[in-house]
Structures are given as structure tokens and as C-alpha cells.
């Protein structure tokens, strides 16, 4: 699997954005719908938005320089014990570097231009729960540090090795624990090993006619265990729920022993739910090995949709109403104008004159006839799922609400492209990095009444901070309301800027991201909706959950892992 993936960027080796000989943007590979297509307006958008130019290019190192990699320091006794268990392991430099990072901007930047100060000393590949038990026992015996590794898609510096860690760091890669152990059709549950990657899980379940419906944007690469450990959220949570709603049972190996429940029931009143110590523990307590998860029959019918609103305010009001009436489709998202234009720039070359004529007509209708300002309007993308009949009925209900808020249906195609954007955005970042553009996404959750203020202020803050920090071109600072709840919404920001002329772009970038997070907190938003805390956002934990709250978490950690075997230093 490691072979298939980029060593210094996001996703698959064969999928990336390039500029072809004609200078037009193109997405390579056949894995995505966008694959092999030419994107005629994308280049212009990049130039206009970031002031970037194709002539100014940075190049990443072509491959890892093994000599730069910190040496692997592993005690021989441990190696002997490990060999005795017959669990496969590696001390190879590439294997270790691959597991030394997640996908934060600074991590990718280091991969391209420098080297981590501390990386795992050894990688182990357990294939089942028992293997994990053995490894944890050995780690306790030899006093080693274990960092569990699932899909490696973390964006919170959670996978970075603490520099000051003197013990041997063992990266415990769960990828070989990827079987579905059983499927219980009567109760609609499945017991799955935690290392399975999202899309494999769905593929295998689909063979039996089921799905989990949990689709985080990273589902091609992220693992079930990772979802549990970070309190993940899926795009279609409106139907299937977030990870905490999906999980029925968790088995976790800790230095104290194994933690699990005695039954697999929908709910129980036995004190605070111990699952909630595990979900979001970010690898600080132990290794999640097996998870029993709810499954659903694969839906009969899926339909995309989109609605154009005259402005963002109306759009948010509409989403609020949809949430109030509790009729949100599987997914409903509202992108702001900048992101709409971003999506627009990714429109592939149209096949025929007729389609292009039709597009022109549509545009004319919306901007001229309906009087929407193309620089103000915003778009909601929708995904409906279920029985065909019910989907159509549901669709009508949602469109009726949208009409009340001045929305106009804008077709399936726009909707689908919107969702595709979330899968390819990480590839776009790699393209940007080649042209002096760095960017990142971050998210928060916020009560409904503060959504507008938060979006406006955070975007404005980013623009201002960029200006203050000497960024030469106005940044891209855009957001979308990406999930709706009864009491609030999840908001997702993209932020990118051209760093030409700045000597230390990563430092500048981090300062701005920090300012943006401060702004979020000042506007009544949360520290994180689903990315987690890791080491990147630890700083604000005390403010987020109070001293006592932090103490509660600490005391759990102290009991479960007194010697800090799981020493990735996340969260606390």
C-alpha cells in the first residue's frame, strides 16, 4: 500500500494536478471522476486568486535522502523478544519516515525540504488483536514508547514524534489488521478489525449488501481505529450518525490490560460511558483493535442536487430552517462565494457546444433574470439517499424550504462537483506547493446564531493577519457550512496564500492559523469539530474544557498508562 501512495504529498502516486504542455491544468490518473480531464479555467483562477505564476516554481526533493534520516536506535533485547513473537517489523528509513507524520502543512513542507528531528525507530505490523497485546506487553517490559498509526491522515500533528522522547519509539501500524470478523444481519452490526481503511470497509460490506455510511473526506486512506481515536465525523452523518453514534463496542489494548464491555447493546446506563474515554483519546491510552459498528443496507438510490442563494446570509438561514424541521438530507453543505468560484474553476472542458450553450443560458438566467450577483451568490450542495420514492419526496421538501429563502435549484452536476472538490482538494494543495502557494483547512462547530458572525470574522481575521505578516497577495480565505445539527453547525475553512517574498512561510502560516483559531474561540466556536486536538491545538485545551475537566482526563491517563507507554503527547 505504501507503494501506491505519495511519500511527500497527499494520496495516490498516479493522481495529481499538473499543467500540460498547453499550460492547461489537468488531473492525472483514473481513480477520480476528474481523472484525465482538462480544466481550462483553473489556471486563470490560480493566477487571479493568488497572484501565482507558472514561471515561479519550487521543486520538492525527488526522493527521500536516506542519509538525513535520524538513525534507528532499538535495544537488542527487545528485538530478540520481538522476533520471538513472529510479528513483522522494519527499521528501514523510508518505512519510518512514512509513519513520522500526518498531513499538516508543516509536515509536508518538512518532507519536501527538510527532515524531522525525531521519527519512529521501528515499525511493527501486528495482524490481530493478540499481536497487539504482545507488543504492548513487550513495550511495558522494555519501557518503550508506542505510537499507534492507522491511515496517517492526521491534521493535528498527532503523529509527530515528541522530539524529547529518549526511549525507543515503536510505530504500531494497524494496517494489517483489516478483516471483517463477522457480520450480524439480525442486529445489523459488524465486528471489524480497527486497521481497515474506510473505502475497503465499504467495499467489503457492499459485497454483502451493507454499508456503514461513515464517509469522512479522507475515507480512502483513513482507518476505522483512527476514526474512533479522533471522534471522526462523516459527510452523511445526518442519516448514519457520527462515529460515536455508530460504534456499538470497542476493544482496546492498554498497558493496564484490555478494556471492553460485557455485551453489545444499543445503550446502557452503567455510569459514564467508557467508550467516551476511548473516542477522542488520540492514541494516548492504548491501541484500538476491534470495533463493532452499526451497518445499514446499501441505499437503493442516490441523488445529488444544488441550490443557488443570492447571498450567504440567506443560505445559512435556509440551512438553519432545514435543521429546525429535521429534514436534512444525507448531506447538505453551503459554500461561500469564493469556494463556489473555486469549484467553478475546476469545471472540466465541456464536450459539446450544446452543453456550453446550456451553461451560458443557466448563468444568464441566474445573474441577469434573477439578479443574483455572481460575486455574492453562494451555493448549497445536497446529497439524498434512500428509497427512490422517499428521496424524491424528500428532495421536494428541501427545495420548497430553499425557495422560501430565495434559493434556486441549480442542478445535480453542480452538486456532484461540489462533493468531488472535497476529495481532490488535498491534491490541489500539492499543486499549490509547487507554485509558492501554501494552504490548509481547519474546522469548528458553532451555535446557529453565531454562524454568520464567525464566518465573517474569521475570514476577515485571516486576510488581516496575512497583510500584517507581510504576505504580498491577498489570501484565499473561504468557508462552508458543512454539517447541520439541531443546535448549531460545523464550519470548514480553507485558507491559502502565495508566499513569495516571505523568508519563513511556515512560521508565518502557523501564526496566521493560530490567530484564526483564536478568532474562532472568541466567536464562540469550538476548538475542533472532528479533526481533533493532537499537539497542534493542545494549547487551548484548558480553556476549552476547564482545569477540572483536564484533570479528569489526566487522571484516566495516569491510571491506564502510568508509565506513558503511549507517549505521543497528544491532547493533554
Amino acid at each position, binding site marked *: 500500500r505504501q507503494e501506491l501512495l505519495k511519500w511527500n504529498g497527499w494520496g495516490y502516486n498516479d493522481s495529481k494536478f499538473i499543467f500540460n504542455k498547453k499550460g492547461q491544468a489537468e488531473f492525472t490518473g483514473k481513480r477520480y471522476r476528474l481523472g484525465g480531464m482538462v480544466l481550462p479555467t483553473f489556471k486563470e*483562477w490560480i493566477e*487571479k*486568486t493568488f*497572484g501565482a505564476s507558472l514561471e515561479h516554481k519550487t521543486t520538492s526533493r525527488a526522493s527521500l535522502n536516506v542519509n538525513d534520516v535520524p538513525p534507528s536506535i532499538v535495544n537488542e533485547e527487545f528485538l530478540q523478544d520481538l522476533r520471538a513473537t513472529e510479528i513483522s517489523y522494519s527499521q528501514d528509513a523510508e518505512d519510518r519516515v512514512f509513519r513520522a507524520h500526518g498531513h499538516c502543512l508543516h509536515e509536508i513542507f518538512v518532507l519536501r525540504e527538510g527532515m524531522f528531528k525525531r521519527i519512529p525507530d521501528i515499525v511493527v505490523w501486528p495482524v490481530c488483536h493478540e499481536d497487539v497485546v504482545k507488543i504492548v506487553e513487550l513495550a511495558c517490559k522494555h519501557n518503550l514508547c508506542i505510537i499507534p498509526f492507522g491511515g496517517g491522515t492526521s491534521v493535528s500533528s498527532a503523529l509527530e514524534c515528541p522530539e524529547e522522547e529518549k526511549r525507543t519509539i515503536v510505530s504500531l501500524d494497524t494496517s494489517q489488521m483489516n478483516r471483517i470478523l463477522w457480520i450480524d444481519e439480525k442486529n445489523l452490526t459488524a465486528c471489524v478489525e480497527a486497521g481497515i481503511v474506510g473505502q475497503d470497509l465499504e467495499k467489503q460490506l457492499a459485497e454483502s449488501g451493507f454499508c456503514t455510511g461513515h464517509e469522512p473526506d479522507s475515507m480512502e486512506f483513513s482507518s476505522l481505529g483512527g476514526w474512533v481515536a479522533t471522534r471522526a465525523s462523516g459527510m452523511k452523518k445526518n442519516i448514519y450518525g457520527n462515529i460515536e453514534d455508530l460504534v456499538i463496542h470497542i476493544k482496546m489494548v492498554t498497558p493496564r490490560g484490555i478494556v471492553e464491555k460485557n455485551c453489545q447493546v444499543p445503550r446502557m446506563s452503567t455510569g459514564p460511558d467508557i467508550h467516551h474515554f476511548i473516542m477522542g483519546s488520540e492514541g494516548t491510552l492504548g491501541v484500538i483493535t476491534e470495533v463493532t459498528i452499526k451497518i445499514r443496507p446499501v441505499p437503493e438510490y442516490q441523488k445529488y442536487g444544488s441550490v443557488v442563494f443570492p447571498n450567504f446570509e440567506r443560505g445559512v438561514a435556509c440551512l438553519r430552517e432545514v435543521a429546525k424541521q429535521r429534514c436534512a438530507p444525507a448531506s447538505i453543505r453551503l459554500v461561500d*462565494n*469564493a469556494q463556489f*468560484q473555486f469549484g*467553478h474553476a475546476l469545471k472540466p472542458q465541456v464536450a459539446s457546444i450544446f452543453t456550453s450553450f446550456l451553461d451560458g443560458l443557466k448563468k444568464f438566467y441566474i445573474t441577469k433574470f434573477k439578479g443574483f450577483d*455572481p*460575486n*455574492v451568490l453562494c451555493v448549497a450542495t445536497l446529497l439524498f439517499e434512500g428509497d427512490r420514492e422517499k428521496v424524491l419526496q424528500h428532495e421536494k421538501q428541501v427545495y420548497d424550504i430553499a425557495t422560501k429563502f430565495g434559493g434556486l435549484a441549480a442542478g445535480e452536476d453542480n452538486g456532484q462537483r461540489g462533493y468531488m472538490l472535497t476529495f481532490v482538494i488535498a491534491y490541489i494543495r500539492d499543486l499549490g506547493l509547487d507554485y509558492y502557494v501554501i494552504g490548509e483547512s481547519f474546522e469548528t462547530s458553532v451555535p446557529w*446564531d*453565531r454562524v454568520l*458572525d*464567525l464566518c*465573517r*470574522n474569521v475570514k*476577515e*481575521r485571516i*486576510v*488581516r493577519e496575512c*497583510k*500584517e505578516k507581510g504576505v*504580498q*497577495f*491577498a*489570501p*484565499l*480565505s473561504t468557508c462552508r457550512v458543512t454539517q447541520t445539527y439541531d443546535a448549531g453547525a460545523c464550519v470548514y475553512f480553507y485558507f491559502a496564500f*502565495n508566499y513569495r517574498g516571505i523568508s519563513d512561510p511556515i512560521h508565518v502560516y502557523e501564526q496566521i492559523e493560530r490567530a484564526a483559531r483564536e478568532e474562532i*474561540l*472568541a*466567536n*464562540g466556536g469550538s476548538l475542533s469539530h472532528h479533526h481533533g486536538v493532537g499537539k497542534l491545538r493542545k494549547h487551548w485545551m484548558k*480553556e476549552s474544557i476547564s482545569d477540572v475537566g483536564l484533570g479528569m482526563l489526566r487522571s484516566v491517563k495516569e491510571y491506564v498508562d502510568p508509565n506513558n507507554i503511549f507517549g505521543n503527547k497528544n491532547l493533554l
Partner: protein
Amino acid sequence: MAPPIARSPRPPPRPPQRAGQPSPGGLGPWVLREAAAGMRPLRRGRAGERGAGRRGAVGARRTMAAAAAAAAAAAAPGRARRGAPMYSQKELTSKKRDEFEDILEERRLSSDLRYAMKCYTPVIYKGLSPCKPNDIKSAVLQSEQVQYVIKQLAKEVGESPDIIQEEATEILDEMGHSMQLGAVRFFAFTLSKIFKRLFQRVCVNEEGMQRLQHAIQEHPVVLLPSHRSYVDFLMLSYLLYTYDLALPVIAAGIDFLGMKIVGELLRRAGAFFMRRSFGGNRLYWAVFAEYVKTMLRSGYAPIEFFLEGTRSRTAKTLTPKFGLLSIVMEPFFKREVFDTYLVPISISYERILEESLYAYELLGVPKPKESTSGLLKARRILSDNFGTIHIYVGQPVSLRTLASGRISRCPYNLVPRHLPQKPSEDIQEFVSDVAYKMELLQIENMVLSPWVLVAAVLLQNLPAMDFELLLEKTLWLKGLTQIFGGFIEWPDNLCAKKAVLSGLTLHSNIAHLVDGQVVLNDRVEDGAIGEIVFKRALAILMCATYRNQLLNVFVRPSLVAVALQMTHSFRKEEVYSCFSFLRDVFSDEFIFFPGISLKDFEEGCFLLTKCDAIQTSQQEIYPTDKGSVIVSFLSAVFRPFVEGYQLIFRYLSKETREAFTEKQFIPGVRNFVFQLLEKGNTQCYEALSSDMQKNALAALVQLGAVKKKKMSNGFTYNVNQEAVNKILDMFDARVPVQKPVAARL
């Protein structure tokens, strides 16, 4: 399609006339945006555009330069401000200030009618969706905030919400402005006529207007002018109209509504009216606060109010009121707006319109009620000359920058934002700090005329003074004031004699020149002794009003000087203790930033060192030979306050019954002082000033020597005789001020 960031937030209503084209190549969207948003040149009426003589060219050049400078400043606005502590040590060297332009000059050259009817397309807030005054009222009425209070009250008093809603509507109707361009044009015309008759010049710093123009477009703006005269009221509106900027809405006292027609006219010019006290009335508070906040949030118009709350009768800056300031700051705390600009504005009068009224009022003759007939009667002053007005529009201060790192966000995150919430202690402290900071900024840019120096000198040499000597001393004082950073407007090539003479002419009602002697106008033909004292007090108080303008600049070094004289010691520690004590006692008399006594002391010492009056070592402060003149002058300037406070404290320690109200206290102390003056036992006429009397009482309350209690009919006071005596002893320098020196010197 252009990315939204590169777009101008609001296309300028007219294409920039002279703005330079952004040079091609290598310029990112920042530059484009700057150009679109900021390069609109500052305009001042159409006559200027047609080029009225030399003015046209000069004005244009200046405007261009200002535009460029402002754009450059805007390109890195935060970098300069960021991280600046809340109280930044003032620039103590005489700092560069903007130049002034006379806006009346143009009025004298072209038609007022055309000016009043000019095409008015103001610069407004970028996010503004235009609406009518009535839309605002109904938005306020429908707001969650007001509806919540209405429902609460309905539940409590058991009345139907409709009735209370009705009440709220009435409050709003009483309060709300109804700005109309017609009324504005009417004022533009009449005020032009009136100002031209009353004043020689109305001078404005154009750079300040340029900065204001930027600020208005960017964020909601709060205008905070100083308040010395009724003229302040419409002055800013007149100014903003002249410069084609959005007209402010102005918080005015409800008393103006007592004036027929005029009240309504003011309302149409953008005034809204607040009752003097409404602490207990929750509905009124809710409606009023929401009304102000709605206008602020939407960027409807700049909001103008007076931090001092009322006109200062003594020309000293009054201690700030916090109510309205905390209202306009709240939308930022709750993040309903990204930022808010606070703009300190200093309006200085060479001769204050109400000078004699103020003096009468301070002596206990009640102020005439605001009435239209009164206003008409006052028209005789139209034939009088009131000199020059200087308006200095200060640098807009970003509330966000002030607040960064100071405000805990929790209280606002855990309660729905529409619920009325008592501000937390750190918010209250912050509001108070901001209020003081703004007043100090106002003070910094107050313009001092030569007459102010003359008044200060004259008051130390009563009853008459040789003209040549006066001249010499005035010049000496001018030098000293400039060293202290005072902003003196002394025309470059005007010789001292002319400057002083023109001051004397302008203020001939206060003093005049006879036989080479300058004499105060305090003569009464064969009056009773009481009448003589009264007349004399009147003249002195009027004169003191001008000297007072100097005190803001002098207060820190002077208190060091007074402390030096009081302690008879050169030990720094002792001097500082005494300084600190004086600062506490005078905390209502002068404006000190809360809690930084040591910094004030250091500033005072620094200024005294700068003019070679003292020398300091690690442990000691001692006056130089040359410095004794300065030290004794400085302490003499403040002697009226020291002596006045002593008299008032003495009255309180001996003459008062157990509990009293302010209404009983003022006449009591006035009689006490009056009798002493009649007997010739004191020469401190200024102790008759009710302003000083109130401040002294307030100081004792703060020092804990007087207890203030709220009763149904207002406040009552209880004197702790022993404590007052102790303070008095310290004041009389009978006992050393004993106070632990908190900070290392």
C-alpha cells in the same frame, strides 16, 4: 470572475479624480483593493474643486499627499499598532502634529446656498445596506434583545406584553432621530451664516479627516469629541457634511427636547435623545442600548457622543462616563462586528461662547433651561467675536487592538447574546481604561491659544500687572509649555506683543489694558462687600477657565513640584508618596490613567529634568538653581486647587452635620468660603466653584473618608471626621504622607 477579495467592497460613488493609477506589473490584489477603497480624494465642497484662488492648488496638493500617506498607513495598519500596550507613554518630545486648514475661508468666498444644496454623496461603511430611520426603530422593537425584556417585564408586573411593547414604542419615538437631508442642508446654510459671524476661523486637520474617511469605510466608527460648548453639537456634522462623509447620529440630553422646533430640527439633523438617568428603568435601558447597537452594527452612521457626559464648565476635561461607551463596545465583545474604531476629537475654542454663563453657574446661579426663546435671546452674541475654533481629528483607535489579550471570552460564549448581561469585572475595568485613554488622547491634541498663557500668568499677578512684564512671562511660559509637549497655536511670525494684544482684545470682557497695566475686570461701582467678592470671583473663574486648559499639560510635573515643596525633602521615595497622594486627591479634578501613579511620576520628573528644573539621582530629586523659578511657578499654578481643597476639607471636618445631600453641601461650603473671602481670611476665590467642591467631595469618597449612600431621593454623605482630619493634616504638610511605596523607583 474576479475573486471577491480583489473587488472593491463598494464602488466609489465617483471615480477618483486625481488618484494615481496603480503602477502596472508586480502589484497584487492588495494594491488594487487599496486603490479602490481608499484613493478617493478628500473633497470639500464644489467651490474647492473649481479652484478658489490659491486654495485650490494648495488644497489639492495636500489632499493628494494625504491620500498617499493614508494609503501607505492603511497598507500596514496593524503593524504599527499591534502589541502597543494599553497605556503607551506619550510622545514626550514635542511631536509632529498635522497642519490645520480653515474651512470658513471657503465659505466666505462662495455662496452658502449653493454649498447647502451641493451634491452630497457621502463616504459610508462598506457593509451598509441603506435604510430609513424608521426601519431602525422597527428593527429595534422586533429585536430579540428588546422582546426578551418586554416578555420578562410582562411576566413580572403581570401586564400584557402589548402594553409594554406600546411603552417601548413611545420610548423609541421620544428617543429616535429622524435624519433628513433637508434638515441637514438647512443647518449647513444657517450654521455657515452663524459661524462666519461668530468665529474668525474654524480650523481642521485635513489628515485627520482623511484618516476618518478610511475608518468610516472600514468599520463602524464612534466619534468621541471633547465637550466645551453647545457649538460642539453640530460642529462635527457640519464638518462631515463639508468633507462629504457620512453624517453622525449624536447622543443628546433629553433637555433639548424642551426646546420647541429646535429640538425637532436637531432630531432631523441626526440627534437622538437620552434621558439623564435611567439606571432603574430596564425597558428604557434595553431599548436605548439596542437602538445604539443596531445603528452601530449595521454601520448605519458614525455614532457621536461625549465621553464627559456634559459640557465642562471649567475647560478641564471631566472624568468620563462609561454607560454609552460600554454600549458601543459590546457588539465587538460579542463579535457581532469585526472591529470598531474609536476616534478621539479635540475641539478647542479660543473664546468659549458660554464663558460667562459657566462662571455664573459655578457660583450657583442656575443654568437657564434650554429653550427656544432663550436661544433667540442669545442671538445678541452674534455681534461678538469668538476667535478661532480648532478641531483636531485624532488617529482612529481600533478597539480590537486595544482588547487583544485583555478580555476573557467565556462570559459571552456561554450565554445567548441577546440576554442582558452585567459586564464582568474585567470588562468594566477595560471600558474604564479605554474611556480614560480616549480622554487623554483628546487632551493631547487640544490647541492652546496665546491667551491661555496670558491667563495663567495674570492669575498669579492679581489684581493688575505691568504689560511688559506680562509679555515677558508669557513668552517664558510659551517655551516651558512647548517643552512639556503642549500644542500651542502661535502663528509663526506673529510677535509676542501682537499675540497678547489680540488675546486681550478678544477677551476684553475679562481683562483690559490701562496705562500699561493689564487689569482684571472686577470693578463694581460702590457695591456692598458681598457684591465685590462675587464680581471678583466671576472674573477670576472666567479667567481660570482659560488657565485650566494649560493644566492638562502641566499636571504631572506640577504635582511633582507641589510634592517637592510639601515634603521639604529631596528623597525620591517621599516625594513620590506625596505625589501619589496628591494624584489620588485630585483624581476627579484631572485626568489620570487609572493605576499608573509611578508612570505619571516618572513622566513628571522627566519633563522637569528636560527643562532643567530638577536633577535626579537614584535616590534623590533636587531642584537646580535655575529650576526654582519653574518649580515655584508650577506649584503656584496649582495653588488654587491645593488651597481650595484645604478649605473644602476644613468645612467638611468642622462644619457639617452627620449626614447631608449634595444639595445641602454645595450651598453650605459656598457660604463658608464666601464668608472667609469677605473677611479677607483667604484669597482662594476658586474654592467657590461648585465644580471644585463636587470633585473634592468625590475625592473624599474615593479615599474612604466620606461614605456615600444611595437613598430613595438620591445620595447622602456621611463624613468620617477623623479620616478627613488626617487627610487635611497631610495636605497641610503637618504629617508626612505615609504610604508604602509599592513600586521600585
